[in-house]
């Protein structure tokens, strides 16, 4: 198994800096959902990781910890993080995206 980035929605949706989406070297890997966290009463949307594209470089972790100082991203084993966003399940909207979560390592 291998490590992928995992974003804490509660921390992310309280700040909304979007730095991780801008610093990720992979295209369309860290996406943004304007409505994530709204059902919990949080102010902004949240970034999330399309884990099938994540190469585990952890640049987003450095950016979140040192530039944004939010500490919202951790590296976790892909078989231990539960249901996650996958490229095949991402729905693009006008100004935001949503993802139907699924098990990244079925079987």
């Amino acid at each position, binding site marked *: 198994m291998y490590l992928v980035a995992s974003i804490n929605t509660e921390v992310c949706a309280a700040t909304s800096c979007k730095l991780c989406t801008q610093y990720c*070297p992979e295209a369309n890997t860290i996406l943004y959902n304007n409505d994530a966290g709204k059902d919990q009463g949080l102010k902004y949307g949240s970034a999330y990781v399309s884990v099938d594209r994540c190469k585990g470089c952890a*640049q987003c972790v450095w950016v979140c910890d040192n530039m944004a100082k939010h500490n919202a991203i951790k590296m976790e084993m892909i078989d231990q993080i539960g249901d996650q966003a996958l490229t095949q399940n991402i729905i693009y909207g006008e100004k935001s995206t949503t993802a139907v979560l699924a098990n990244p390592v079925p079987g």
Partner: protein
Amino acid sequence: MSLDYVKFTPGFDRFMPKEYRDMVEHGPFGKKTTVSQVGSFKEILEEHPMCAGCAMTLFIRLAMISFPNPEDTITVGTAGCGRLAISQAAIPFVYGNYGDQNGVASGLTRGLRLRFGDKPKDVVVMAGDGGMADIGFAQTLHSWFRKEKFTTIMLDNEVYGNTGGQESGMTNRNQVLKMAPLGKKFEKMDMLGMAKVAGCAYVATVVPNNPRRVENVIKKAVLIAREIGPTYIQAYTSCNIEYAIPIDKVMEDAKAVELDRYKFSEYVSEEAREYLADQYGYKEYMPKPAPALAKS
């Protein structure tokens, strides 16, 4: 070279892969997308085989987001790491033989002007320091002296990263590498100085740890190359493999190098300043209003 080439053939849309459908329906073609909107639209760059955490990939991704008209852009590249990602994008990519990317781009630019007349078609060369400053040096400099109207971007990782770590002309003096065990014997080549001497209308250095600045620089360079003359961007894109930078410290290294030897610099010719102000409303280059007369 029109929006039609990214549309579905009627009846076939349901057979296309999801990535292709997303690109047609939610891609940047025909829209004005910016770096601040990233994460909410389908990018033209796709999955690619570059190393994890590569700063060159980040720069290429930001450059592709920043192209003013991606549907009217052709990229030209050559051997080196960069082409592994540049070729995995939803815009045409021309692969020049090692070193002749600026020659290929010259012909391409002239051909597009003959074919499409005044309609702007942007040609952007993206190649490494070896392809541009060593093996393609003559063709790069000649294209600038001939005032060929296209953008040249050097992805400067200061090493031949693709072939095991040989020194290039852009490697710093005394740098020891796997295939340069005694250290490099001469200074890093001053390509910025040569670009200015050769008559480039826009010359800039940039480091990818500031995405908005990368966007600004790429947009200016591509726009100026449409009408005024050759433009050159030199981007520091570290090789975390050959320089043994831990992958989560790549941005820290970029910041350190920016402070040390890669400070942001920008040269814009007088003609290019006027052009950007007149045609594209760049306020920073607009003539400053005459100071109001002091009331007597």
